[in-house]
């Protein structure tokens, strides 16, 4: 009997402990509801006061592109710092929101920024399919301005564009400008196989490469599409034709180096050609037997790490000074977010922070805005899509033996249709696994 009583006492203690922890847990949850940044669960009252401009930034801070998302936000912060954190007498408040690279989460995050955090304009998202989702959301919020981040699906602005969605960086097709011609003429590749991940961004990349390469006279004899995150390429490797000059590889993360290893082990002889994100630091830090194979890999991108141009060097310097813990050089994501943020801030400055009347004046200014980015001039076409420079690079070695992407060609003022008249370009249809084709 005695022991039974003790148990009762102990259980009451346990109850109280549980209650306390539960209340704490609930408090943390409720704390979230009662103090959203800028405040006010009260319906619809805009939190932004007249002397504040709220800018929302949406990037992938979770999921497969989390590291890229962090660098993207650095780009936005860099642009805001350049303007001293204010436009006229209005201060700029940055509100960040995260997605995990899925369209549904991106749409929710965009909705939160616009409808809950009451941002005046929004920059993002980061990945292709997210861009389509946010573009569709933008159509339901005609009074707000949306600027793309680094999302590079071509259709975001080419087909069904939203009148308030702007993209001041080029898209996945434009990022390939110059590469097809360069590898055909300068590297002498005539027959090429393609290995890419099976979703919208690589479709754009492959199309951008093939449009030029096929036009120059090259042949793409076979295409391999693998699911995102594939690490074992043995089935692909054994099916690659032997009578080819090169393989165009558009794989993310460590995919390209994994593939190269397996391909070389198998005895494959063909050279590589890289997509925009293929030749990254994991490839450039290659040592050992793969070293020689990586040398000479051509790729194309809207930025070139070793661009000697002073505007780019200044940008790199500013980035490194502000973010000592960042990458050795600003990534594509930092750059694209920076450019879009800068476009927004330049336009805001021109209208002196006037956001009245559904941000009409801001939109007007953005439509015709032209300015110099770290990679050269940028302007928009009638779909609010950037026309800007592109860069062809080749992997080269420095005197001390380390590899780097050497800038070999600047392709000036690349437009969304790569110089093809728009109606003809649209007739090519949406790019997918089988389109375009030149076997």
């Amino acid at each position: 009997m005695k022991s039974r009583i003790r148990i009762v006492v102990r259980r009451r203690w346990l109850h109280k402990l549980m209650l306390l922890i539960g209340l704490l847990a609930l408090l943390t949850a409720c704390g979230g509801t009662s103090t959203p940044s800028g405040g006010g669960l009260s319906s619809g009252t805009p939190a932004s006061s007249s002397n504040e401009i709220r800018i929302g930034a949406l990037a992938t801070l979770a999921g497969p592109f989390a590291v890229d998302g962090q660098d993207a936000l650095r780009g936005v912060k860099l642009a805001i710092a350049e303007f001293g954190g204010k436009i006229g007498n209005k201060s700029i408040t940055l509100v960040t929101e995260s997605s995990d690279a899925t369209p549904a989460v991106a749409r929710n995050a965009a909705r939160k920024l616009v409808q809950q955090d009451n941002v005046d304009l929004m920059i993002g998202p980061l990945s292709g399919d997210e861009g389509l989702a946010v573009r569709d959301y933008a159509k339901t919020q005609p009074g707000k301005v949306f600027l793309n981040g680094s999302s590079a699906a071509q259709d975001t602005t080419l087909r069904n564009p939203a009148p308030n969605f702007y993209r001041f960086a080029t898209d996945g097709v434009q990022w390939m400008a110059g590469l097809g011609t360069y590898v055909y003429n300068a590297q002498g590749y005539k027959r090429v196989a393609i290995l890419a991940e099976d979703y919208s961004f690589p479709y754009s990349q492959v199309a951008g490469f093939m449009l030029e390469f096929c036009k120059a006279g090259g042949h793409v004899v076979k295409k391999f599409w693998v699911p995102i995150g594939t690490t074992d390429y043995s089935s692909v490797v054994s099916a690659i034709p032997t009578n080819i000059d090169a393989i165009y590889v558009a794989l993310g993360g460590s995919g390209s180096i994994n593939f190269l290893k397996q391909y070389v082990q198998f005895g494959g002889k063909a050279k590589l050609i890289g997509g925009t994100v293929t030749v990254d630091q994991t490839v450039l830090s290659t040592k050992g037997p793969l070293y020689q194979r990586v040398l000479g890999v051509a790729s194309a991108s809207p930025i070139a790490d070793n661009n000697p141009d002073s505007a780019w060097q200044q940008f790199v310097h500013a980035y490194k000074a502000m973010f000592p813990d960042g990458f050795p050089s600003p990534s594509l994501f930092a750059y694209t977010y920076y450019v879009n943020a800068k476009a927004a801030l330049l336009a805001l400055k021109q209208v002196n922070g006037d956001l009245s009347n559904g941000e009409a004046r801001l939109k007007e200014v953005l439509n015709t805005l032209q300015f110099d980015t770290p990679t050269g001039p940028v302007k928009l076409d009638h779909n609010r899509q950037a026309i800007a420079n592109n860069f062809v690079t080749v992997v080269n070695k420095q005197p001390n033996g380390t590899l780097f992407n050497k800038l070999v060609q600047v392709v000036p003022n690349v437009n969304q249709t790569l110089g093809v008249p728009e109606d003809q370009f649209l007739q090519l249809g949406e790019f997918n696994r089988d389109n375009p084709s030149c076997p």
Partner: protein
Amino acid sequence: MTILRVARIACLIAIVLFLLTFPLFASQFLVVQIGIQSLFLGIVALSLIFLAGYGGMVSLAQMTLYGASGYLLAILTVTYNLPWFVGVIAGLLFSTLLAAIFALISVRSQGIYFIMITLAEAMLVFYYADQDRIFTNGHTGINGVQAPTVGSLVLTDPTTFYYMTLLIAALVYLGLRYLVRSPFGLALQGIRDNAQRMQSLGFYVYAHRVAAFTLAGLIAGIAGILGTWYDGAISPGSIDLTRTINILVIAVLGGLSYFEGAFIGATFFVVVTTYASSFTDRFNTLIGLALLAVALFFPDGLVGLSRKTVQLITRTTVWRGRVPIPLSSHKPVPAPGNSRTVASDSVAEDEQFMIVSVKPEEEEKQP
């Protein structure tokens, strides 16, 4: 006890009133992002709680069944331009059928094996959706799904959509509450607690499990239609492993043995994921910690916690007032840590079928 009863009814009325008037005082954002999302995620979690709490089957395939109806709705209404009701009916039929097939494959296993088989089924469908180009349009999925206009009801309007979702959620909730008190529901709970005994009593165990799983598939399918209308799109990202686990997290947070838990867990989850990112990049850690706390301290989830709180308060007042202790608390004091008996000493009379233990007696049955 009568005071408790009154308090309970008052509480119920307050909750119903709150839900009904929510769009009148809350911002559109709250209605859409928190309200609607909590409701349709809650319906998915409800199907899991029904299976796990009452059938002893922890299924990881519920989000997949959600996706099945969502995908079919999207394919039929967007790709083939058919009217919305064709998409809805076909979608629901498809998710029900798929659930029946899943059930036939998996009901003969139990416990961890059942979880693994349903996980395999979920991943199979996910990878199919991710790679098929003809129907599911691969990684991009299908965009441009729109809720229809039915007569004078414009379902794309957030408030209308909220009320529709609320109505459907309430119907599913009440229907399931009714079902678990029906002979079928009781048999199902019997099977959960001791399948062999039920079999020797003449119940066909597997048929009951298949039926329960199929019904849960229909419920998840209903949520799939709502969720796909809400998102305006469906892609493999809507049914991937993260989303699959989210439903389990919601159910565990809310309490695997109470239907209310589905919605409370979903609301908690949605609120934390929506707002935590304003304070910290580590909101996934926050959810993880909450889950850990729930699993460690409140095996019956947030609902169990609130019940225990009420129980604690009433017990202390009873003691302080030196009122004769009700008969129910004269029951033998259970051993600490055994949640089933802990709660059974104070359940109200209308809760006699409430199942407090999540765990079927698998320890005894596992080979």
